[in-house]
């Protein structure tokens, strides 16, 4: 028996499988590199588009367009993907070693990473709402397996499930919104919808539903709670998920459908409220955390809050600011996550309170992450400065209240990110640091260089952001971020934010009690608690249904058959039955059929009467074969053939399964049940008899589907109608059916042998 690599354990050629895993890692890096190069080339060449009919009768199209918005997110997903994959190539072997797992488990990691990237690029380019939904869910599926990569750990599994449920269930809202829009305007295409849509309740509800899905994906309050738990994932996953893939998918959708959102100002105001709530909640909770990755996770909630606010503000400047914000945040956040991963790997500590003074031990990492933190805090000479410049400009345009809130938001960012950096690299040395491979430091450095280059030479980034904003805004956008040494409001707001943030940072005595209370309140009444209660309730309900289902099969059958029988009887009482029951004539030619039917009836009675297991099964197969013979006599050879082969297989499987059951002791039937069973059987049987008789009494009308199919069969190059229907006329049905068959077999196999596929 060849064993799969899982069962083989560490003895079976560890070198070969580790080398294979390494190869896979670098293959993923190569794919990301090539994808980045292609994306860059296509963007510089002015974009591209593919538009194929997918299911024309449903109005679905494979409509992919590499426009400005597509270019921005595709470059982000592949560019950051490239850097993160390089980091992962160094990180994953160490991680697996720490978790006492074989190095070959890398093959469970890289395919999902590549799929994650592919789904993100697809989502970036998709312009058809249903296609967007498919890619949206694909990112959720990939993230499920990546967050739950350490599947031995219960926390990781719970976190993966939470991410999948929160983002997957909300994604259904997106589908609902899409269908609503289709019903109203007859298309799923976003550009066409933007032309056709008019203000109205249906439009508002539909766009709000899509926005809900996007907000859940971007971890916005109150559906933010899955993101901090998702840090159970290995660091490369977190770095990617927070900066360029999963969470970015939400704001990407908002950016894509913004022309639709902007139809109703109420939706935009909703975005504004959710965005600010997320900025404040994320910022305060980030200040309350002790674990490095938790701080960064709450920071992500807060940072995407900025982008949501900008989409809520709307308009040319805000659209450009949102696009640039996503770029700057992606660069900074992935660098910071990788920093956290390297620090944890080196020291074995993941708490701020146990870390400090690492700048001397890791000067390169300290410098690179300093630049990343400066980017997030919007200091000059980094690309981050411009993101806040545009953010403030858009906020001021909207009004003084939004402007003030923007300053508070930026101040919170300054406070928590410097608390993070200073806590790790400055102050007293609290932990030992072991040397780490260069692969865990260099990627952070690369991103830091990109951030500084962006700070000195903003034009290419601004061009990319302007291209993306053009799609969001619906018209070409002019974007000119630059350093201005004057007293314009943006500069004043930046200074105020730095000052305020510095004060919050330097006054822990004031800060700590406040944020601790906020965190406590969040734990007590926050949505995460509701999620837990809901999940437990659903689980308990499912257990109860399952218990009642498996306790007695006859009860479940009766529960279906009895009401059916009663309803049919009522139906017959209510409708005139005259003429609907025809007693045909029996001629000598029908003799074979009569004999066969008598045999079938006798077999049926045996099944019902006989105790034990084997004899009812054999009687059932006699019944099946007799009916097959009836089909053959009646001139339906295809049905007869299928009936015979299926009957043979079923009998074999029945015997095989029954041989596994414990031997029968005593009687199988509980005494009190007998009367009930007979009554249920009689009601069900009589109603089925009445319905079938009535159906057979009707002479078929002239024009029917089957006549049409018989007429068309020769044009499909066939003469056997049944096969042509299966393979051609109803080919898609057959396809779906055999897919279900395969899935069912996989399920049966894993149940029979506890998860082993062979």
């Amino acid at each position, binding site marked *: 028996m060849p064993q799969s690599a899982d069962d083989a354990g560490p003895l079976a050629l560890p070198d070969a499988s580790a080398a294979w895993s390494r190869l896979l890692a670098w293959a993923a890096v190569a794919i990301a590199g090539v994808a980045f190069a292609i994306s860059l080339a296509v963007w510089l060449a002015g974009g591209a588009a593919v538009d194929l009919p997918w299911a024309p009768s449903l109005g679905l199209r494979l409509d992919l367009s590499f426009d400005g918005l597509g270019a921005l997110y595709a470059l982000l997903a592949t560019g950051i993907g490239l850097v993160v994959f390089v980091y992962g190539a160094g990180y994953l072997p160490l991680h697996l070693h720490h978790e006492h797992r074989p190095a070959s488990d890398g093959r469970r990691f890289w395919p999902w990473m590549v799929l994650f990237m592919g789904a993100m690029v697809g989502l970036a380019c998709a312009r058809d709402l249903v296609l967007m939904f498919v890619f949206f869910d694909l990112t959720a599926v990939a993230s499920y397996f990546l967050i739950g990569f350490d599947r031995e750990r219960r926390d990781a599994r719970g976190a993966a499930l939470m991410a999948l449920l929160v983002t997957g269930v909300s994604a259904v809202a997106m589908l609902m919104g899409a269908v609503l829009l289709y019903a109203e305007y007859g298309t799923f295409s976003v550009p066409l919808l933007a032309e056709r849509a008019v203000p109205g309740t249906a439009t508002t509800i539909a766009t709000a539903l899509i926005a809900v899905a996007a907000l859940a994906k971007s971890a916005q309050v109150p559906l933010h709670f899955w993101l901090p738990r998702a840090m159970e994932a290995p660091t490369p996953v977190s770095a990617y998920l927070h900066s360029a893939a999963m969470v970015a998918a939400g704001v990407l959708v908002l950016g894509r459908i913004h022309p639709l959102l902007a139809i109703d100002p109420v939706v935009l105001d909703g975005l504004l409220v959710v965005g600010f709530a997320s900025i404040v909640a994320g910022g305060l909770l980030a200040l309350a955390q002790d674990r490095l990755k938790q701080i960064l996770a709450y920071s992500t909630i807060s940072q995407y809050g900025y982008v949501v606010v900008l989409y809520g503000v709307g308009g040319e400047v805000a659209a450009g600011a949102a696009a640039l914000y996503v770029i700057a945040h992606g660069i900074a956040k992935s660098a910071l996550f990788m920093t956290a991963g390297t620090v944890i790997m080196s020291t074995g500590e993941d708490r701020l309170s146990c870390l400090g003074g690492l700048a001397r031990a890791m000067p390169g990492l300290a410098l690179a992450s300093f630049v990343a933190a400066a980017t997030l805090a919007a200091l000059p000479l980094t690309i981050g400065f411009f993101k806040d410049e545009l953010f403030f400009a858009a906020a001021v345009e909207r009004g003084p209240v939004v402007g003030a809130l923007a300053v508070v938001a930026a101040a919170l960012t300054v406070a928590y990110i410097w608390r993070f950096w200073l806590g790790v690299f400055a102050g007293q040395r609290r932990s030992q640091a072991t040397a780490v491979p260069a692969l865990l430091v260099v990627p952070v450095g690369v991103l830091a260089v990109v951030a500084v280059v962006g700070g000195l030479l903003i034009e290419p980034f601004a061009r990319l952001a302007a291209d993306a904003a053009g799609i969001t805004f619906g018209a070409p956008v002019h974007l000119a971020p630059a350093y201005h040494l004057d007293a314009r409001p943006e500069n004043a707001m930046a200074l105020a934010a730095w000052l305020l943030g510095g004060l919050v940072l330097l006054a822990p005595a004031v800060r700590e009690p406040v944020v601790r209370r906020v965190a406590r309140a969040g734990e007590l009444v926050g949505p995460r608690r509701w999620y837990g209660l809901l999940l437990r309730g659903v689980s308990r309900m499912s257990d109860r249904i399952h218990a009642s289902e498996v306790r007695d099969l006859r009860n479940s059958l009766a529960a279906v058959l009895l009401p059916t029988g009663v309803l049919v009887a009522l139906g017959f009482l209510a409708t005139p039955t005259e003429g609907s029951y025809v007693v045909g004539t029996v001629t000598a030619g029908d003799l074979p059929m009569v004999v066969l039917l008598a045999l079938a009836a006798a077999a049926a009675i045996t099944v019902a009467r006989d105790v034990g297991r084997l004899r009812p099964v054999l009687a059932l197969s006699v019944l099946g074969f007799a009916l097959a013979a009836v089909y053959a006599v009646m001139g339906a050879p295809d049905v007869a053939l299928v009936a015979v082969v299926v009957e043979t*297989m079923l009998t074999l499987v029945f015997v095989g399964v029954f041989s596994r059951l414990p031997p029968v002791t005593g009687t199988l039937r509980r005494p009190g049940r007998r009367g009930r069973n007979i009554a249920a059987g009689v009601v069900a049987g009589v109603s089925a008899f009445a319905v079938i008789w009535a159906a057979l009494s009707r002479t078929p009308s002239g024009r029917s589907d089957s006549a049409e199919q018989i007429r068309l069969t020769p044009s499909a190059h066939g003469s056997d109608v049944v096969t042509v229907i299966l393979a051609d006329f109803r080919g898609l049905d057959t396809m779906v059916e055999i897919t279900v068959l395969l899935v069912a077999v996989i399920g049966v196999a894993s149940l029979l042998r506890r998860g082993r596929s062979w």
Partner: protein
Amino acid sequence: MSNIFAIIAPRLLGPALVIGIALIVRSYVSVGDGFSAGVIVATAIALRYVSLGWRLAERSLPILRHAPIVAGAGLLLALATGFAGLLVGDPPFTLYPRAGEPVIHIGTLELISAVAFDVGVFLLVTGSLVVVVHHLARLAEDPT
């Protein structure tokens, strides 16, 4: 187990395969399709499992160990046939040659893509059923 069964059961696979192939090749002009062919071949294989035991059955016919791959390949083949039309701009599940177009003949054999679809169904059904039989047989002999 009776001697007759032990002798006959392993030898049924050949005839079953012939019948299966005949059913697929002739499926468009007479009775039968990939599904029936698959179940017939799988039944013959199941009889081998019953008469030889799973170890011997799989040692004497090593391809049985690849049943999951066969099933997956069948699904992929059927999918590929069904969606091939997309590549040339036709809706999915356009089968070739299309209505009214001439059929390529090799002797009396007609080349139509519906047969490829049927072969996919055949492989999937055979592979899936062998997987189930394999698990039942293993469970029956060494329950763990």
